[in-house]
């Protein structure tokens, strides 16, 4: 699908390089390396607050076709997500790593790099008995976004 602002498109804002690699690894695995052009991962914003601010602004400026996903580190503070979604922007989706990806990788004793962590998340996305997704805060937002994408025949 070509990128067109009048058609369904998704912009993903990430907090840092680690999140960028996790997201890219997830997308590559989920779409079997053929990520649709209507999905764009933007450069890391540097910090959870700027990520959310940029995502909120972009969501407000975009039309009804735009979906915005922000991926942040919660660092143990799940309220960050509540803060972001408090103003009720319907097309804004926020998910977070329960803790910093570096710490998460160590805790999970994940053998690979961040991209392979993203790959594992994609592989376990539809599993119900996965422990990996327990470390992701607000997976429901991602589920809802996925459903929306599916309705638009993106995935």
């Amino acid at each position: 699908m070509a990128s067109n602002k009048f058609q369904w498109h998704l912009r993903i804002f990430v907090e840092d390089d680690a999140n960028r690699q996790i997201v890219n690894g997830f997308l590559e695995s989920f779409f079997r390396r053929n990520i649709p052009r209507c999905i764009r991962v933007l450069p890391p914003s540097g910090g959870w607050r700027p990520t959310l601010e940029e995502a909120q602004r972009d969501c407000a400026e975009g039309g009804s076709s735009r979906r915005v996903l922000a991926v942040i580190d919660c660092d143990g503070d799940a309220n960050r997500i509540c803060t972001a979604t408090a103003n009720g922007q319907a097309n804004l989706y926020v998910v977070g790593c329960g803790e910093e990806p570096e710490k998460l990788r160590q805790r999970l004793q994940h053998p690979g790099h961040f991209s392979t962590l993203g790959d594992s998340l994609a592989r376990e996305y539809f599993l119900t008995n996965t422990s990996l997704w327990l470390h992701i805060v607000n997976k429901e937002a991602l589920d809802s976004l996925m459903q929306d994408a599916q309705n638009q025949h993106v995935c």
Partner: protein
Amino acid sequence: MLKRLYIHNYKCLVNFEWRLDGLQSSLLIGKNGSGKSSIADTLTFFRDIGRGENDVAALGREDGFTLSPLALWNGRRDSCEPMVFELDVELDTVLYSYRLVLDFPKKFQKLRIAEERLSQNGKLSYTRETAKVVIAREGQPDAVLGHDWHSVFLPTFQDASQNAPVLLFKKWLADMVILTPVPFLMTGQPVDRLAPLKRSASNLVDWVVRLQADSEAANQIGDYIREVFPDFKAFAIRKLDRDAAYGPEYLFLRFFDEQTSEVPFFLLSDGEKCFFLSALLRASTTLEKDSFCLWDEPDCHLASHEVGFLIRALRSLSGQSILTSHQLETVRQFPDEATFVLLRDTHLVPTRPPRTLAQLRDAKELKGDLSHAILTGDLYGE
């Protein structure tokens, strides 16, 4: 799949070993003069050998350069150190190791082959020292023959077994796609329909003709082009004047309009030509089981917002791909473990062994934000 590349004494690459460890897609970054294009040169020499070129002075010639003695590290005429090229490639569980050593003795005008060797899974197929070639034969004594000093032996060599594994290796070498596109040279005219694709992609239309012969590839090319030009309909190679009996042919792209209209390929912008080339490349790799591509700076003609899409597409090639780049957006499409950094301090010292961003982070040589490290030059030690 290319597993390992070793280059010694070629331009700035001295004792340079690069292990790709099964990476399907990797990126080479480094400041100007760090040796990225020299790696592309080396693979071009191997590609030409696979295509049957045995004159050592003619390697690279089709692409407008040659393997000159000047490429010896520092170009020192009194240097005793030979130039060494080694390549390990795994195809169908066979590991092919090929080694070519070139020296430049006094009173010689061109490089001489000092040593050459091919082995399969560690078992020697043939070895050579200057003019003396020794071919290993199963259950029989080795065959010994003389060969021209300046002539590479591999194009001549053919194993006698039924499945001809060396032929497979030579085909892999010959089919390597190495690109440093020059859109200005892509005129959209067929030149020699049998000629392999040049690094500049100036004869891209010849490639179109060959790919068109496969209906699946032709459909895929259309699909890939439509990702960038949603109104693209088809392409055709025809004379400028449809009714003319004679005259040059050109590549045209047809678009959906109120009336379907055609645009000559020649009129596409540099970036659009690169997109077209990428569509051909994607379609071609689906035809070859073990395709290999190295594209030197695929992003240099593109609008910033298109870079990520093209790189993502190239990362999704069904075979193995290596890209080089200076662009931050390209780097962002690759994971740290597949991004190799070439570091070179000055023009008087060779390039250091390649290390991944992940290795640099582990060694605390890369801290904090990658964008900042690249834009400031910190990543390259500046």
